[in-house]
């Protein structure tokens, strides 16, 4: 049941709720019990006691065991489970509904919690797994396999990962009795179909067989239902609020995996000679790749300017089509984190890959800028590269990946090094017959706890190493013992704070927020642990007593915005089950209650402080909907943007000051919030300057997030607000978390970057942490490492799940140490390195003049390339710009970064502040599109029959590729622009927008679906993108010849602009700089 582990999958509410309108970023529709079995979802699951019968099947119409009769007929995108793909894939898919109906009619031995042990008749493909069968069974699905024999479900124990099974030494018999000792046996080809099902449709069986040694992960246990099922067709609810939108956008979103992002993988073939295998091939280079000649790792741009050439002479000589550009990869990569006891180089973050954790953590959770660690600080400096980790501890796994195992050590807690407190991991070396172990972080030798003792095998490993997840997996989760709790795990408390000032009400922001909340609360688990509260504010703060005993909610106004307080000790935040009716009633009436509100002031700071006081006891999530500049009470702000503009001389000189928080008030509040585990998310539905620089301090410090809707339009942004909110509260997340990264001796953590509060130097406190939040951890040498040894990094995240379990997620990565500079370049991780550039630049913008930041970014790029040129490139044709293969796109991305919103001179202050803030917690896969967005042509969508991907291949960001007859869509993971040329045929306009001329397209623009293939395809594309990005992108319409068109062209980073060089010019610039350095 690997059921689809879609983002935030199946929540109890999902099954019963009406299909949500529009796109839902989270996938729904799985019976919880199934999802429960999937450990990769465990963070949000209650203890495995879930009652199957209690959860109705989401899609009851499906046959109980469709797997036995493959339904190849899932044609096209229409059926809810289907995802456009080749028929063989469909074979698998029906299995989902198979275990969907948990009704008694199912002949399944669903005995949650009772380990029935694997029957000996286990289908053979189970044997292919190198894991103990008990573990397997834990993830086993009754409905699993398609090709895998007769109803395996009935024989497979469906026991969810039971702690007893995982308890060290618990069931030795079971373990040994299973004939699973042969590792890595390839399953029969029949099962390859399974694999395919997980991947994107492109995935062909041919590709699979090409890597026979790769076992199909989860083939049996995790039927690849994946995200497909999750999609529910959008319901009418939201649309009714948007009557003008007519045909709903995304009525039938194509069902695709959010993971199946067929994004850009480097295709070395496109690069200038010599054609070398790019990183794409890493999955084929299992084991230690043979050392490659430097050349093979290099991209050269041949006819470049000569050393003495005229600066401008160059461009003409460079063929713009020959310069490095990202290209989409079309297939899923299967990645094993270690092979032959060697760390493998992970696939690019932006590619679509499936990870098998064979000792190192999945790169989704933690990845390093360089996959080999320089043995000394000098070597690192010489390389010109940076050493940092990007950690995304709760990242969404691919649905086909094996779930993270939960290990319960009982009373004694997880085994740890007694000196440095590092957690047990596969790289701790057991010695002395297993009686002692050596810590891979501090080198200390510890006694093995008596009940954890196990003899060593002939290979020096513990005999039980493969059965114990903590000894064979890079990522495990430990059940936290009492010593990790200062109090009982907190309840999941959600407090919604809504701006009802005049502006908010009149722009429809209040109504949009209320409607979004109202819909979203149906997705919250209705347990006693789910607490909800609502407050509104203008110049005063209005709390609502939602106690059930009252006939109707009672509004309690806190008028003193200088010295706020919570008006009630209890009853402001009440268990959801007790206040649902009141809450719905209230949310419905808030917009009308404040319909005539004439108060234009907003006491934002006081309101969040008051809400905090109400939540102080438990902690929880505070979701604030704010529409205007906070003008009153605690933390009141002034319209300093305008002041900056009028006082230009001062404004010019210290422009970046406006990107700093106005005062310390918010920072102090935020630290207090974090201390009491209150995580704040701010939804800015505004049409004016709201000083994001100041406001964002609070979400940043409390592990929250800023959402920005500018200029807010009730028509076009209501759906986005709803989807953002829904994803915000339904995505996998944790509360009251603490995170620490440990490194092997010789390396230490220098600094953490991200959204958190830091009180002591070693740890970061996270009032809230979710699957999207990423931290950058910069590293530094404090000693020389030994060449040939391994250097380990361990991130430990202690957090409370939505269901009140205290867990420690331990993510361990062990990388080889090298003294060879060339190894460093070969092992460089472009996406990660660039992400570091981006985050560092963003963090410096508010404190340094822009010019300096841009220069710094360029220099970082130049330094790395210079180092490569100087020390690694043997062939040195002075006229050539030589790029290391792994970093060949670095100049392009650097150029794009220097032209990005945050580093531009022009642009609104808020927009830039938001950009800075957005970047601070941005994950690696989203970092690249943010600066180098994806652009596709949509006017000819229907003409291209590309079966591989919904999204057509994308275009370079250069105006050369934009024609006046075309319509283009550009997305950066956050926003989406549709550009319409001025000579587009009216037929296309009619088909896509229902109007004959460009001018007739209404603003604000709402994408509609019309009954023609082109329009349907466009909607499919948009929905596919939204799904991939886990974000409901704002659609903006750009027309040629008006300001919106200009803004579209500002994304054309390869063009020469006022902001800087064209791509070719930039390459020349870089080349020249390197040459200067060479000669200097």
């Amino acid at each position, binding site marked *: 049941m690997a059921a689809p582990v879609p983002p935030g999958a199946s929540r109890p509410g999902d099954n019963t709720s009406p299909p949500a309108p529009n796109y839902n970023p989270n996938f729904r529709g799985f019976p919880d019990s199934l999802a429960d079995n999937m450990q990769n979802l465990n963070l949000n699951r209650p203890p495995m006691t879930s009652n199957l019968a209690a959860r109705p099947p989401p899609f009851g119409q499906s046959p109980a065991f469709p797997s036995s009769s493959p339904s190849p007929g899932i044609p096209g995108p229409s059926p809810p489970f289907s995802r456009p793909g080749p028929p063989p894939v469909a074979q698998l898919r029906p299995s989902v509904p198979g275990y969907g109906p948990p009704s008694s009619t199912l002949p399944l031995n669903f005995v949650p919690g009772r380990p029935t042990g694997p029957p000996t008749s286990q289908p053979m493909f189970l044997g292919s797994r190198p894991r103990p069968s008990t573990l397997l069974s834990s993830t086993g699905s009754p409905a699993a396999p398609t090709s895998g024999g007769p109803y395996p479900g009935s024989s497979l124990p469906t026991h969810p990962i039971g702690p007893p099974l995982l308890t060290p030494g618990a069931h030795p018999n079971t373990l040994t009795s299973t004939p699973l000792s042969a590792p890595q046996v390839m399953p029969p080809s029949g099962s390859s179909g399974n694999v395919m099902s997980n991947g994107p449709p492109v995935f062909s069986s041919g590709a699979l067989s090409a890597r026979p040694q790769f076992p199909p992960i989860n083939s049996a246990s995790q039927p690849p239902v994946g995200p497909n099922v999750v999609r529910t067709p959008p319901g009418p609810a939201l649309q009714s609020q948007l009557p003008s939108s007519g045909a709903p956008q995304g009525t039938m979103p194509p069902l695709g995996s959010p993971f199946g992002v067929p994004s850009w993988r480097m295709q070395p073939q496109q690069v200038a000679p010599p054609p070398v295998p790019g990183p794409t091939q890493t999955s084929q280079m299992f084991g230690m790749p043979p050392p490659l000649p430097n050349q093979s790792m290099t991209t050269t741009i041949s006819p470049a300017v000569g050393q003495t050439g005229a600066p401008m002479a160059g461009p003409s000589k460079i063929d713009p089509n020959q310069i490095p550009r990202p290209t989409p990869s079309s297939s899923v990569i299967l990645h094993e984190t270690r092979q032959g006891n060697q760390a493998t180089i992970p696939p690019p973050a932006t590619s679509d890959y499936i990870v098998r954790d064979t000792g190192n953590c999945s790169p989704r959770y933690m990845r390093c800028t360089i996959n080999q660690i320089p043995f000394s600080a000098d070597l690192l400096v010489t390389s010109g590269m940076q050493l940092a980790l990007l950690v995304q501890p709760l990242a969404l796994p691919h649905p086909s990946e094996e779930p993270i195992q939960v290990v319960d050590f009982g009373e004694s807690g997880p085994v740890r090094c007694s000196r440095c407190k590092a957690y047990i991991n596969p790289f701790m070396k057991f010695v002395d017959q297993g009686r002692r172990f050596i810590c891979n972080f501090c080198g200390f030798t510890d006694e093995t706890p008596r009940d954890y003792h196990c003899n060593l095998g002939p290979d020096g490993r513990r005999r039980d190493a493969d059965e114990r997840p903590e000894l064979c997996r890079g990522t495990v989760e430990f059940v936290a013992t009492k010593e990790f709790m200062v109090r009982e795990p907190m309840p999941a408390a959600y407090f919604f704070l809504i701006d009802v000032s005049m502006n908010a009400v009149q722009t429809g922001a209040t109504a949009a927020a209320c409607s979004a909340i109202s819909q979203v609360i149906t997705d919250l688990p209705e347990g006693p642990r789910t607490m909800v509260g609502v407050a509104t504010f203008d*110049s*005063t703060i*209005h*709390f609502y007593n939602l106690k059930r005993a*009252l*006939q*109707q*909610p*009672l*509004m*309690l*106004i*806190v*008028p*003193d*915005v200088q*010295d706020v*307080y919570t*008006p*009630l*000790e*209890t*009853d402001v935040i009440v268990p959801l089950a007790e206040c649902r009716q009141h809450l719905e009633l*209230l949310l419905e*009436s808030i917009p*009308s*209650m404040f319909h005539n*509100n*004439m*108060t234009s002031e907003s006491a934002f700071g006081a309101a969040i402080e008051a809400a905090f006081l109400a939540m102080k006891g438990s902690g929880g999530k505070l979701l604030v909907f704010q529409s205007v500049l906070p003008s009153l009470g605690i933390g009141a702000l002034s319209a300093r943007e305008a002041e900056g503009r009028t006082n230009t001389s001062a404004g010019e000189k210290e422009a970046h000051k406006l990107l700093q928080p106005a005062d310390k008030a918010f920072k102090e509040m935020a630290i207090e919030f974090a201390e009491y585990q209150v995580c704040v998310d701010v939804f800015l539905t505004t049409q004016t300057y709201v000083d994001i620089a100041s406001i964002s301090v609070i979400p940043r410090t409390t592990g929250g997030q800023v959402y920005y809707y500018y200029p807010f339009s009730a028509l076009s942004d209501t759906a986005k607000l709803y989807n953002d909110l829904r994803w915000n509260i339904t995505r996998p997340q944790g509360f009251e978390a603490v995170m620490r990264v440990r490194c092997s001796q010789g390396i230490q953590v220098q600094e953490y970057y991200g959204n958190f509060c830091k009180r002591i130097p070693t740890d970061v406190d996270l009032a809230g942490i979710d699957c999207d939040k990423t931290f950058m951890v910069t590293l530094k040498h404090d000693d020389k490492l030994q060449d040939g040894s391994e250097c380990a990094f361990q991130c430990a995240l202690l957090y409370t799940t939505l269901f009140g379990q205290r867990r420690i997620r331990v993510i361990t990565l062990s990388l080889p140490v090298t003294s060879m500079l060339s190894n460093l370049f070969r092992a460089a991780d472009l996406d990660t390195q660039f992400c570091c550039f981006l985050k560092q630049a963003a963090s410096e913008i508010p404190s340094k003049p822009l010019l300096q930041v841009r220069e710094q970014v360029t220099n970082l790029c130049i330094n790395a390339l210079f180092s490569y040129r100087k020390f690694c490139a043997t062939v040195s044709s002075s006229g050539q710009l030589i790029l290391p293969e792994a970093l060949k796109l670095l100049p392009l991305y650097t150029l794009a970064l220097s032209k990005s919103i945050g580093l531009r001179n022009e642009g609104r202050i808020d927009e830039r502040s938001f950009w800075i803030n957005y970047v601070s917690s941005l994950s690696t896969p989203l970092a690249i599109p943010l600066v180098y967005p994806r652009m596709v042509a949509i006017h000819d969508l229907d003409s291209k029959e590309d079966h591989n991907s919904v999204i057509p291949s994308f275009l370079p960001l250069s105006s050369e590729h934009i024609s006046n007859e075309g319509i283009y869509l550009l997305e950066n993971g956050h926003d989406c622009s549709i550009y319409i040329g001025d000579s587009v045929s009216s037929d296309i306009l009619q088909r896509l927008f229902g109007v004959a001329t460009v001018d007739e397209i209404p603003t604000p623009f709402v994408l509609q679906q019309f009954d023609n293939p082109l329009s349907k395809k466009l909607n499919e594309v948009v929905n596919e993108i939204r799904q991939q990005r886990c974000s409901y992108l704002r659609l903006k319409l750009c027309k040629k010849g008006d300001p919106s068109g200009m803004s579209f062209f500002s994304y054309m980073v390869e063009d020469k602009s006022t902001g800087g060089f064209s791509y070719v010019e930039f390459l020349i610039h870089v080349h020249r700089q390197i040459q200067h350095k060479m000669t200097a």
Partner: protein
Amino acid sequence: MAEFLDLEAQDGVRMPWNVIPGTKQEAINCVVPVSAIYTPIKHFPNMPVLPYSPLRCRTCRAILNPFCMVDFAAKIWICPFCFQRNHFPPHYASISDENLPAELFPQYTTIEYETPGEVASIPPVFMFVVDTCIIEEEMAFLKSALSQAIELLPDNSLVGLITFGTFVHVHELGFGQIAKTYVFKGSKDVTKDQLLEQMSFFARKPKPSAGVIAGARDGLSSESIARFLLPASECEFTFNSVLEELQKDPWAVPADQRPTRCTSTALSIAASLLGACVPGSGARIMAFVGGPATEGPAPIVTKSLSESIRSHKDLDKDSVPHYHKCVKFYEGLSKQLVHQGHVLDLFACALDQVGIAELKTAVERTGGLVVLAESFGHLVFKDSLKRVFQSGDFDLGLSSNGIFEVNCSKDIKVEGIIGPCASLEKKGPLCSDVVVGQGGTSAWKMCGLDKATSLCLFFDIVRKESPDATVQSTSNQFYFQFMTYYQNNSGQMRFRVTTLSRRWVAGPGSIQELTAGFDQEAAVIVMARQVSFKMETEAEFDPIRWLDKALINLCSRFGDYQKDSLSSFSLSPRLAIFPQFLFHLRRSQFVQVFNNSPDETAYFRMILNRENVANSVVMVQPSLISYSFHSGPEPALLDVAAIAADRILLLDSFFTVVIFHGSTIAQWRKGGYHHQPEHQAFAQLLQAPHDDADLIIKERFPVPRLVVCDQYGSQARFLLAKLNPSATYNSDAAVPGGDIIFTDDVSFEVFLDHLKRLVVQ
């Protein structure tokens, strides 16, 4: 005595000296001060109401009255106070000996003017301020009492609601969609300006830049006022539903703590809100308090239960940290309320003290009502509240916005008033240097007043002994004029004038005349008010000594005796019962604070200070009526000897009414004889005191507590405590009624003996 009652029936005035000692020295020798107890808006069935404005003297602003000399031919009248000759205005042209205006009729010394069209623009306002830190049971009682009250309100009267506990909740009754309240922190005092700002009174229009912001006339929109103050007819439903959902203060109270109750903040907010919305018009803050204030600017005690609420002893030792702060706070509040013309009524229902002692100034200066009961479920509270809103025979005649002014002859000055009013600080030649109570002025504000409100005015006779005292005979009359401008309960503005004339005497032969004019009931009440006032204001004051000295001096001046002959001592009938009154005054709750909490003492004194002479006398010396088969109901001596086994006694001590059954009667009653037809007479005997008690209860405010008890029963203490202990456990003589009092107090006989001995020495 009867003539004094007649005078009261005509003018509502009782004076201890109806013949006034004519010189300063004489007045001092008379011991009991020259004073008057005046009931400004006493109900007179026959009093004319004149539909025009009064005529005033050009110089002293006195009103034309029956004591003026009128020259009909010249159309001139002479003011008796300043002797100014005033011309009648043209519309008095037809005046003649036969055609007098009513104000010149000799019998109309008290008369009322009503200028037509002068009606208050704002109907009466009631702001309910309700304590929620009370147990559920009390809450239920209070809710039902309040919802009854709102039904009784006139439809047009404006109603507001504030509840308080840890926080102050100002309910916006005018918000239709859901129940809405403004919540203020209990620990923080809010100024009026902050209040206006925070309750978004300026949401629709900009705040006026300068000047006083108050009411619809000065800067506030009437819609914004109507959010909080609504006509009773419109908001009854909302009010009731808010009441229905009103809950006990939800903040948890640790076991060793009192609830957090911010009475002072709530009252301050109520005052500021009214001050902002309806300044100057008749509005009452009706506070329902169920326990001690522990939070805010004026807590009477800390939250910790380990600290006990202050007692008289603590106050005497000055060991109560909050006391002075509280008193100061409430003085400030009373100033604010007086300035706004608003009344604070206090309904304190708790077994604990709630802080009446501290609140006293605010209630008294504004002329508010005060009711103290043990519980919101008690009849004393429930019936009293009903009485406040009741119309009909026994309505209180609640009026508002009163201004009281005094005019008197040249040789008299005004020292001040002890009673429910506040000085307007109108200084003038009339004001004496000596200040008693609210003094230093000739005008007082009476924010709230009713038919029973009685003020005690103290006068200073400044006329010096002159050598030609014998030849003075031009006028031996003193004139007094009391003027009350007020808004009656139907919203009309009235002006009542009472003009008095009293003869003064001086010189050696005056004792007889003075005695003849001595009103001992009025005298004892003046003494009672004065001694209470001194106890509250003078440090180290010994009331017993002061009263004894006064009594001895009075008796030695006015008694007949030969030196050192005890038996020769006698008093004129005019003074005969004065010693007895003082004996009971010494024993009364006004002087004996032992066994009473400061709250109770404050309560008793507040009632004393607003009641008329007859009711006050009952407080000092309760009336006792005996019922038996042998005779009809007859007054009995307030003595333990009045108790008899076959008698029923009805004791009226104003605050309590006790029906006491002698032991035989009690046995019969227990035997149920009164249910048997052959014992109808007994049934009637039993019923008679109840009927009389009902009569008393019906017309009294606050409603007294009715105690029905039997001889030797525990409740009998309510009677025994008031009786003269002529038979105690020390007495040798046989006890006639079979009851004794366990006390060491002296009996009246012993007291009188001592008095005689001291007088004749």
